[in-house]
């Protein structure tokens, strides 16, 4: 219907003076935005199909392509923006829930950008990471808080199972199904090479990746997809997913069209069926139930593996975290409202949950107020975009961070936010074999290793600048942070002073 027509948001601009008609753009666009017109003897494009993923732009050998924002406009209206109007049209046409993917793109405050970092001058020397040891190795897991000695008086190792991280960065949960086999292969290999961990997400563990088990966190979500004894035993740690930052309060949803033979086998569900995780775990309606699941999983794995409980950052996150810390969990993972997803209802993605910076500050302080900060490690995600965010997170109190969107970007993702279509031109959020093969794990692994190594270098540079040479001395060191342009309330929640104070 004419009324449903929406002018495309982006336009493909082709410089015909540069185009050599190699047709790489046409071959590489799974959305079929480009085609060769034999009558005109040149390439033409249909911008209504373009999702602005830049695959064609990146591969064009003569740089003949660019994508621009359209200047087509509704009558200017600060309240009824073009976006707001278009969404009404779409819903009036479809009667459905608006779906989006990846993280929240709305212009809500990014507290990372309002926090500044300290450096040493005069009274305390900066340390040069090129010349002195600079340590970013960290351990996740419960600390005993007391010691035990044998008959000779030697210390006995009374630590619960720990995860050793050579860098304070882990790859966050992304299921096989939501991302491709090759994306998982890249993450698994990179985690092993870096001495850290990747996370299976809720889709089970493909049999090919069992050899990477020592660097794998296996997730148990409300759908229990792919969960069985061998799976639990395969991982270095087990994560119970209670919630996800992009969509607190709802479960994952993998459309049947993505459930091919391999995914069907890994998830243990029939081919072609929708994999819909329930919103709650139906065996967890309260905190005491969570404790039972934590210990069920520990029983199942002979108390050899730390258990992580992952929650979305919601309003009373501090109280929830306190409950989790007392549930027997070894690690709490908190996912902020900017966390990514393969598909989520737009309204939930954009307006449910709170920023991770505030959630982290509140949780860390609450656990300290209750004297139980050492009983759990805190890992945060959603979204950590660079080494400065990473450093600020640790100084606010995190033990380590989860990255997922940044990892996908390293693999080629251009944040076009159309994962839900399953036609990812970069071979990441797709199950179509011809697209999946576009992500060569050899390249993917190298790029992930590069990214994390680069961040680790930057982290060390900044730590050295502030005279800190071990990551544990940065953790919770909020005196190293100052706020800029924040209200007193925001500063109080973050537990930092304003710049100049």
């Amino acid at each position: 219907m004419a009324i449903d027509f929406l002018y495309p948001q982006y336009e493909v601009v082709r410089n015909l003076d540069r185009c050599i008609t190699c047709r790489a753009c046409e071959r590489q666009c799974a959305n079929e935005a480009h085609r060769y017109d034999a009558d005109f003897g040149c390439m033409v494009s249909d911008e209504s199909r373009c999702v602005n993923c830049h695959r064609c732009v990146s591969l064009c050998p003569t740089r003949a392509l660019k994508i621009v924002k359209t200047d087509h406009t509704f009558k200017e209206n600060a309240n009824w923006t073009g976006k707001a109007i278009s969404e009404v049209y779409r819903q009036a046409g479809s009667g459905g829930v608006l779906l989006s993917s990846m993280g929240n793109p709305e212009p809500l405050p990014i507290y990372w950008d309002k926090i500044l970092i300290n450096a040493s001058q005069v009274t305390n020397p900066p340390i040069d990471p090129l010349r002195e040891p600079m340590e970013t190795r960290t351990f996740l897991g419960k600390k005993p808080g007391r010691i035990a000695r044998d008959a000779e008086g030697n210390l006995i190792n009374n630590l619960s199972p720990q995860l050793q991280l050579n860098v304070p960065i882990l790859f966050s949960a992304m299921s096989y199904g939501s991302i491709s086999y090759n994306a998982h292969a890249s993450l698994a290999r990179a985690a092993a090479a870096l001495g850290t961990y990747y996370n299976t997400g809720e889709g089970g563990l493909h049999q090919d990746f069992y050899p990477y088990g020592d660097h794998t966190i296996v997730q148990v979500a409300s759908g229990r997809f792919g969960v069985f004894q061998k799976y639990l035993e395969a991982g270095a740690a087990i994560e119970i997913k209670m919630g996800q930052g992009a969509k607190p309060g709802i479960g994952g949803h993998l459309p049947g069209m993505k459930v091919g033979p391999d995914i069907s086998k890994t998830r243990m569900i029939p081919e072609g069926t929708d994999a819909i995780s329930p919103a709650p775990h139906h065996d967890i309606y309260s905190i005491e139930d969570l404790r039972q699941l934590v210990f069920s999983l520990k029983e199942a794995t002979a108390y050899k593996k730390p258990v992580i409980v992952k929650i979305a950052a919601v309003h009373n996150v501090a109280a929830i975290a306190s409950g989790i810390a007392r549930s027997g969990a070894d690690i709490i993972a908190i996912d902020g409202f900017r966390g990514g997803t393969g598909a989520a209802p737009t309204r939930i993605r954009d307006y449910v949950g709170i920023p991770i910076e505030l959630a982290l500050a509140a949780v860390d302080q609450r656990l300290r107020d209750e004297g139980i900060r050492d009983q759990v490690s805190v890992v945060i995600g959603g979204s950590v975009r660079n080494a400065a965010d990473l450093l600020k997170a640790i100084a606010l109190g995190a033990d380590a961070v989860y990255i997922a969107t940044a990892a996908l970007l390293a693999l080629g993702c251009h944040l076009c936010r159309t994962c839900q279509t399953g036609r990812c031109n970069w071979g990441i959020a797709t199950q179509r074999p011809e697209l999946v093969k576009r992500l060569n794990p050899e390249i993917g692994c190298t790029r992930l290793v590069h990214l994390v190594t680069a961040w680790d270098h930057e982290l060390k540079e900044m730590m050295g600048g502030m005279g800190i040479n071990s990551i544990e001395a940065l953790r919770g060191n909020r005196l190293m942070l100052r706020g800029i342009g924040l209200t007193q309330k925001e500063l109080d929640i973050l537990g930092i002073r304003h710049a100049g104070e």
Partner: protein
Amino acid sequence: MLQKEGQVRIPSGCAISGIFQRDGSRIDGSHIISSIAAMHDRSNGLGGGFAGYGIYPEYKDFYAFHIFYDHQTARDTCEAFLKSHFDIVSLSKIPVRRHPRITDEPMIWRYFLAPRHAKLESSQLDEREFTARCVIRVNDQFDGAYIFSSGKNMGVFKASGFPEDVGEYYRLEEYSAYSWTAHGRYPTNTPGWWGGAHPFALLDTTVVHNGEISSYDANRRFIEMFGYHCNLLTDTEVITYIIDYLNRRVGLTLEEIAHVIAAPFWSTIEGKPEKERETFTYLRNAFSSLCITGPFSVLVGFEGGLMALNDRLKLRSMVVGEKGKRVYIASEECAIRVIAPSLDRVWSPRGGEPVLVGLEEGGKQNGH
């Protein structure tokens, strides 16, 4: 308006010195004053202090509280509190000598006391924990009262001023101790508050410290989980609490504590034999939030011993000298040579490597 210690964090550089007599025989305070005076330029007149062990043999079974009072009301409230929690066997002003460069003095009182049996019983705490909590409570909650020394048979003497002046002011030549530590302060801000001077003490643990630790807030926010209140916002305070916590509450030895707070680098740990590697890894992991980074040299005094420790990179100077039964430790060698020109041995301990000295058997039998 300038903020005082506790309202703002003040980084400072410093001088430290210590003398320890292994056989337990006692040395009067003039030596340590001469030693710290040699490093005059490392202080700026805004804080100096001393700790002596074995100075109150006649009251050795009682806690000796040294308290600053800003005003009479503070004294009244504090004494009321002390009376309700302790039996006070003696109380007096600490004798001082008027000194032209020591000004703005508070009231300085000394109490010898023992926890009241009934209070101690009902608290279900051991005697030391009970006493420590009372000290922390006064310092945290009683405006104008500050307990700056609280151990048995030992005492801290400190003030705003150059350390040699502080020593004269407190008439330290009249006290004899088997272990002395001293501190001259160079704060980069000027509150001139007496309580901010070193040594910092809790029970018989005293710390003098030179440096500015960059891990301060990480350490502070962690240690405060265990009932400590870091009111002064100084490094020394947090180091004292960490040592008190790890030693008295967790039960680690001082050497183990050194491996926690100046944890060896992972690369060093990996090169150790298996047993040591396991222990070091355990200590570093289990107490990771108590690792201290940034420059420091500290002298930790305690009943019967003294520990010297540098940060992992040795970013602060510290020299140890030995002559017979006597051990000297100071920021600069000159501070040792000035009182002991010929030494049997002088060396610079490596970063993170603790130097522990203790009383010999005979010294202990001397009743200290």
